[in-house]
């Protein structure tokens, strides 16, 4: 086999001295340094690279850039396989492994083509309609086959092993696109002294200059571009990124960039980097892409953009066919004919839909010996797998017979579409320009400029001039005026001289003659001309409906090459101008972005790092089973031997009631409150009275939201005249802090109060149980813990060993209990000191599960009850509120619906069979079979086994709970088909007088 049979003997920007080996579908191939994967495959004569999304038709390379709709391959292997990589954008590297997708066993012989048999069923809207088929079961059978066959590449199902990174950056001027206009803009902006970023998505900067033959200042375009790039790269104030796509223009001039830094390796150090770039000015020089013209079977491999054929010829030295036919409605395609001829390629002719062309062009073609057929259209591409000819039809209305041309490549130009996706993210929908036959964005805000082809300028000289002007004015408008880095001119860049050749006389040509065979509008999503006709006839005529009904433009290429053709077809169906049809707006991302890059390094444990208690090492050493509580991981229980959760928490809870236990409460929110108005502040924040809390005392408080619902509860203690310590629940610590800061800064700025979060400064532990006093007295110095000297709700400073600690005699368990707060870095030593002192008292650590069992036995509420939907009355604390003062939530807690007597209120429940467990979330009903929605009386919120009662108990909310004490109801969980008979009781199951707490 001849190596690279379609590689031209000379020419192109590839380095023929550096051959590169790569693998495609299991076979070794050779390409050159500077090739794209697409150019290397074309050089090797591989023309059928893929099968289409829906119909599994053979597809090949269509373009030479980011607009590629067809040549999507999987690059890499194993866990590093990247599906849907654009062969046109993927640079070739040694050892690259690529494979075709959506076909089996190969793109040439694909069994999935079964879908083309179903083609009549797969037209626009098929999915919606098939749901309404009378013979629904038949669809259910075929659906599986069709679904399996339709699709794109497959990702590896294993976790992505690659590293993605994120960076933030700032610049003065961002230039998007490094073609002639962008390069000039970057240089002119840099010469003013501004910090410039120049970004391009191709591996090789220069854009169209790498494909052009026009000279700039006497240099080849690519040579001129390379010199400009080299000069920019020497300037420290300029950042030049290739292989980088600006995929989003966000608000306030921030831009999302994805740099494919690992595109040249299978296993790179970094696969991709997300840049969040803030710019003060932006210059779009994003260029334009060539549109296709429609004809039957226009998706055959070998049908390509004329400019792409030119690119492969000029940039890569690759021939796209031995006999090329050009088909156009404008002048630019003639340049392809010229370049193909000058590299010795056979051009079998130019078919032009226009009746007249520039005589100079006609003369040029004549001299080259290229026949030109005017007022003629290509009606159909011939060939089963690849192009083998073209059927032509005269457009003069004569009904002249169809003629056939023998060719293996049809290079098509239907005019140019400026790339205005980024423009429209800030300026809204582009508008149709009838002269240019293109969508243009004309209303950019002042900080944005658009230059070159994306602004509709196709003349090289004009692109250079616009770029230079835009770059200089961007720098000037920011106040830079020639303070350029050393070695740079500081003078306005001289605009080089180039040709004034321009694209002219494009003639709209939307409705080709109909012929047998599909005419593809959207190649990537297999949307045909007939689908658009169907959408119109079924009433999906607005551009948004058209898009959704046919999925046109919804593929990875975002319809770059297809949208305008579709809009024009719809306009003709509707009998209106294209401008009346409108356009869809672009949203980020402009092209698909790997999700991994948004995650960056924040994955796995780094996505949600956890907060560690100061005693975490002790818990780990003790074999605690941890439970997530927000970002915290709290010991849930400390199993002994092979104990289960059930066994362990029952043992721990029972032990606390009988002897003494210790639990880590460091995760509680702690807020230090200082200042002369602290008492007044607390008085307004909590529903109860706070003006008279003496130093050395703690008080329980409940705070509401302004809408009258309970926000949080906790104890606040007074340590000095103007010194308070508030505790919040673990879950609400952040919300309460934000709430208090808002009140102090915005609502009551006159209050002389300062608050700070001290959650992480204090280690907290609760010592609970009948033996707790005796135990603590043995290790605490400087404080008499007797009931007389240190009664319930007293607080005081003391020492444990050398460590100053704060003691609070408060109880969540209902037992005699103390909370001990120590400076965080001494937390573990204090914990250990208590454990040592507790040995003779048989102290036992307990976790959150036992903590929960103890508080449910006492009817204390937590997040399960204070879920943001409950009022003070619902949780049985209405009497706590002092209605003679202002506090947050005072007025709206009295709203009609919130004081209604039929609201479910806090209640206790026992399972009638004591051994039967209850479930949180169960609905309370009169009978096990009752209708849930109509007859629900309330729900269960917290459940546990009570070691003290020897049975399963629960808290919940029940209508008229106090009148129902002793009633039998059912706690029903329909999703789990579970129903338990329960007896209604008071929410406090144990020691309602609180004698144990005050002992």
């Amino acid at each position: 086999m001849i190596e690279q049979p379609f590689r031209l003997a000379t020419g192109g920007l590839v380095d023929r001295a550096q051959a590169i080996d790569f693998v495609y579908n299991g076979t070794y191939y050779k390409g050159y340094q500077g090739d794209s994967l697409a150019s290397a495959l074309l050089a090797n004569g591989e023309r059928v690279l893929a099968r289409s999304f829906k119909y599994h038709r053979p597809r090949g390379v269509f373009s030479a850039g980011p607009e590629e709709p067809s040549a999507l391959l999987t690059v890499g292997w194993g866990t590093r396989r990247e599906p849907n990589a654009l062969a046109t954008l993927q640079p070739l590297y040694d050892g690259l492994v690529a494979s075709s997708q959506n076909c089996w066993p190969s793109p040439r012989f694909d069994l999935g083509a079964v879908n083309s048999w179903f083609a009549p069923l797969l037209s626009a809207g098929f999915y919606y309609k098939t749901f309404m088929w009378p013979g629904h079961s038949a669809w259910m059978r075929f659906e599986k086959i069709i679904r399996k066959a339709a699709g794109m590449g497959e990702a590896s199902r294993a976790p992505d092993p690659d590293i993605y990174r994120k960076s933030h950056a700032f610049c003065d001027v961002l230039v998007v696109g490094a073609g002639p206009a962008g390069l000039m803009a970057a240089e002119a902006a840099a010469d003013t002294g501004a910090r410039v970023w120049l970004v391009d998505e191709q591996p090789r900067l220069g854009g169209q200059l790498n494909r052009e033959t026009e000279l700039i200042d006497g240099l080849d375009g690519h040579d001129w571009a390379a010199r400009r790039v080299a000069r920019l790269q020497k300037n420290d104030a300029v950042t030049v990124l290739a292989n980088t796509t600006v995929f989003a223009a966000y608000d306030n001039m921030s831009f999302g960039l994805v740099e494919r830094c690992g595109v040249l390796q299978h296993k790179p150090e970094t696969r991709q980097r997300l840049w969040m770039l803030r710019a003060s000015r932006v210059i779009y020089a994003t260029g334009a892409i060539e549109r296709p013209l429609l004809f039957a079977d226009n998706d055959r491999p070998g049908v390509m953009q004329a400019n792409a054929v030119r690119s492969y010829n000029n940039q890569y030295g690759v021939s796209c066919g031995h006999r090329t036919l050009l088909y156009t409605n404008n002048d630019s395609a003639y340049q392809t004919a010229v370049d193909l001829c000058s590299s010795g390629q056979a051009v079998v002719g130019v078919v032009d839909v226009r009746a007249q062309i520039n005589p100079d062009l006609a003369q040029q073609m004549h001299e080259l010996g290229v026949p030109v057929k005017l007022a003629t259209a290509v009606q159909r591409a011939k060939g089963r797998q690849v192009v083998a000819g073209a059927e032509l039809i005269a457009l003069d209305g004569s009904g002249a017979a169809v003629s056939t041309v023998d060719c293996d490549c049809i290079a098509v130009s239907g005019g140019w579409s400026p790339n205005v996706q980024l423009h429209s993210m800030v300026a809204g929908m582009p508008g149709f320009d009838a002269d240019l036959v293109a969508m243009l964005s004309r209303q950019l805000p002042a900080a944005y400029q658009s230059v070159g082809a994306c602004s509709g300028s196709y003349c090289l000289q004009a692109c250079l001039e616009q770029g230079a002007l835009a770059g200089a004015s961007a720098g000037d408008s920011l106040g830079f005026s020639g303070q350029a880095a050393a070695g740079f001119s500081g003078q306005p860049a001289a605009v080089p001289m180039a040709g004034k050749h321009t694209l002219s006389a494009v003639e709209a040509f939307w409705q080709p003659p109909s012929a047998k065979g599909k005419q593809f509008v959207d190649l990537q999503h297999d949307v045909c001309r007939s689908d658009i006709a169907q959408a119109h006839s079924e009433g999906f005529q607005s551009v948004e409906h058209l898009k959704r009904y046919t999925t046109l433009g919804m593929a990875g290429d975002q319809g770059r090459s297809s949208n305008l053709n579709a809009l024009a077809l719809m306009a003709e169906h509707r009998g209106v101008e294209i401008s009346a049809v409108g356009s869809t707006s672009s949203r980020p991302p402009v092209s698909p972005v790997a999700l991994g890059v948004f995650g960056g390094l924040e994955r796995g444990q780094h996505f949600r790092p956890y907060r560690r208690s100061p005693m975490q090492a002790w818990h780990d050493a003790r074999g605690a089973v941890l439970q997530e509580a927000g970002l915290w991981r709290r010991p849930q229980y400390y199993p002994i031997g092979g104990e289960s959760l059930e066994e362990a928490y029952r043992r721990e809870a029972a032990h606390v009631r009988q002897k003494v236990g210790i639990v880590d409460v460091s995760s509680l929110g702690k807020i230090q409150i200082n200042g002369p108005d602290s008492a007044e502040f607390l008085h307004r924040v909590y529903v109860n009275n706070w003006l008279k809390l003496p130093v050395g005392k703690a008080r329980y408080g409940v705070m509401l939201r302004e809408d009258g619902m309970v926000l949080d509860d906790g104890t606040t203690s007074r340590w000095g005249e103007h010194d308070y310590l508030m505790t919040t629940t673990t879950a609400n610590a952040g919300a309460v802090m934000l709430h208090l800061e808002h009140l102090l800064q915005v609502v009551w700025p006159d209050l002389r109060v300062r608050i700070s979060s001290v959650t992480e400064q204090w280690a907290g532990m609760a010592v609970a149980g009948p033996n707790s006093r005796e135990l603590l007295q043995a290790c605490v110095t400087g404080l008499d813990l007797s009931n007389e000297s240190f009664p319930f709700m007293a607080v005081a400073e003391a020492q444990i060993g050398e460590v100053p600690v704060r003691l609070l005699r408060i109880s969540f368990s209902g037992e005699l209990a103390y909370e001990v707060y120590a400076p965080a870095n001494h937390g573990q030593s204090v914990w250990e000191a208590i454990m040592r002192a507790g040995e003779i008292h048989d102290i036992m650590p307990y976790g959150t599960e036992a903590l929960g069992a103890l508080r449910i036995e006492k009817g204390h509420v937590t997040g399960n009850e204070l879920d943001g939907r409950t009022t003070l009355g619902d949780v049985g604390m209405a009497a706590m509120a002092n209605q003679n003062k202002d506090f947050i939530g005072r007025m709206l807690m009295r709203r009609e619906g919130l004081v209604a007597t039929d609201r479910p209120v806090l209640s206790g429940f026992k399972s009638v069979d004591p051994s039967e467990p209850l479930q949180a979330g169960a609905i309370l009903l009169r009978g096990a079979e009752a209708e849930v929605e109509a007859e629900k009386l309330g729900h269960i919120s917290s459940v546990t086994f009570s070691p003290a009662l020897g049975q399963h108990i629960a808290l919940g909310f029940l209508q008229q709970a106090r009148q129902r004490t002793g009633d039998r109801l059912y706690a029903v969980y329909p999703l789990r088909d579970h129903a338990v008979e329960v007896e209604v009781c008071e929410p406090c199951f144990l020691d309602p007088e609180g004698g144990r707490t005050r002992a």
Partner: protein
Amino acid sequence: MLSIDCPQCGPRDHTEFSYGGDARVQRPAADCDDPTVWHDYVYARENPRGVHHELWQHSQGCRSWLELQRHTVTHEITQVRLAVGGSVSGGSR
């Protein structure tokens, strides 16, 4: 991505901030007992197409509550100041 020029910290991404709603609502006087006034304070909001005065807290920064003037169509932020009269209660400085 909005850029908010915090008076304490300088320009920062809006991801460092928490939105706090309409800055123009005033909590009724402590002795106000008219439920409709309270209802309006909690629930009634303008939804302007244009300049909106709104609160943001620099929650991942200095914790200051800020008052912004933001255009709801263009997202242009024309003014940022500390939420109350230039003096921040409970602020970090």
